[in-house]
């Protein structure tokens, strides 16, 4: 008699399997992790599970995208766009809302943001019309914005998106800048790859008088 390997799917049924299947659809969660999380939920206090379920439903129901910048928000405009202390003359263009959080952690930038919703990736069928580029151009029409900082990811898709935006923005009287690329703070120079080191040389800055 032949023995077929037993998988997680063969063992469980009903609600437990449904839970494992749904958890397994989340990014970065494989079958083993899904099984571990599912049994953690089954072992947890019912009140804790109810709180998790409420948080999931509430987040999906209440969170929306800012009408101005495209960042996640709970109202028509996000907290950053609604903040009067923010500088209106500088816009930092990022790919995702996660990037806004990363830049906010630096406490260096006091301007506003524009979230594109991704990067140009022709192989995946994502072109300029699939991103919030038209909305960015509309924000620049009134002449208030004097500088656009292109903070797309320093990878092939991000660089190409920045090149496309730079070409589009040259028609508008606005200063266009790109985040510097170079060596990570705390690293050793000898371990830097030649692409990053090359960028660091290109973007070197003058110090002293």
């Amino acid at each position, binding site marked *: 008699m032949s023995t077929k390997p037993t998988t997680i799917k063969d063992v469980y049924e009903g609600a437990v399997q449904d839970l494992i299947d749904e958890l397994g659809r989340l990014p*970065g969660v494989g079958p083993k992790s899904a099984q571990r999380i599912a049994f953690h939920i089954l072992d947890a206090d019912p009140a804790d599970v109810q709180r998790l379920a409420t948080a999931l439903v509430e987040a999906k129901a209440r969170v929306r995208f800012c009408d101005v910048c495209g960042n996640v928000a709970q109202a028509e405009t996000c907290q950053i766009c609604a903040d009067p202390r923010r500088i209106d003359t500088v816009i930092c263009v990022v790919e995702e809302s996660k990037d806004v959080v990363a830049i906010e952690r630096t406490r260096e930038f006091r301007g506003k943001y524009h979230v594109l919703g991704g990067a*140009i990736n*022709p*192989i*995946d*069928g994502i*072109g300029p019309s699939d991103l919030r580029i038209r909305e960015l151009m509309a924000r620049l029409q009134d002449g208030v914005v004097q500088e656009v900082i292109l903070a797309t990811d320093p*990878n*092939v898709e991000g*660089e*190409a998106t920045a*090149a*496309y935006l730079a*070409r589009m923005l040259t028609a508008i009287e606005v200063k266009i800048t790109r985040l510097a690329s170079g060596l*990570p703070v705390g*690293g050793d120079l000898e*371990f*830097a*790859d*030649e*692409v*990053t080191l*090359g960028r660091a040389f290109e973007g070197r800055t003058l110090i002293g008088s």
Partner: protein
Amino acid sequence: MPVARDEAIVLRTNKLGEADRIVTMLTHRRGKTRAVAKGVRRTASRYGARLEPFMHIDVQTFQGRTLDTVTQVETIDALARPICDDYDLYTAGTTMLETASRIVAAEDEPAVQQYWLLLGGLKTLAGKAHTPRAVLDSYLLRSLAIAGYAPTFTECARCGAPGPHQAFSAPWGGAVCPQCRPPGAAAPSIEVMLLLAALLTGDWATVDQAIVRDQREASGLVAAFSQYHLERSLRSLPMVE
């Protein structure tokens, strides 16, 4: 042998887990292959920048049960930089990578001619000696020719009657004579047919002298020919300007 070392061109990358990527490469000796590159999405990664699409690399992989794992990478030619700095080069280059990935369908089967063609095409593109669209069109025709779909732009593709002819049929493989011409065949000018032949043979002097209208018409015919023989449309081709 568990460890393999080869030269490769990175075709595409896909995110895996929190900080890893699956890298699809066209290698010199093994053809198309995929490998996991661990931790390359972290900013502190020592070789993340070397495993971006368009990069020409010397890569060492450890062969696993399902996927290989990248253990060492050295840059041979950082083609990603010049290509990504120009949007027209980027869209044309992406279509070349997608075409290579489609034509070399099977993994771990040598495709040496396709490897050298893609490498030459990307270097020509990055060198900006010719228009990006002309480099792409020439690459598409030649890669299809290597794959067994060589078009003809002089003799009739059906009966072999000497040309030049003024009818083009993608399903029949290029130029067709008045007797063989099927309904719905395109009717390009002699200049366009000569331009197509120059793109196929790499006669850059003729290609660079062609007028814009003929270049556009030739590009349309190359696109139709490619889409027909690749069976599925190239997602990146409509974005080429």
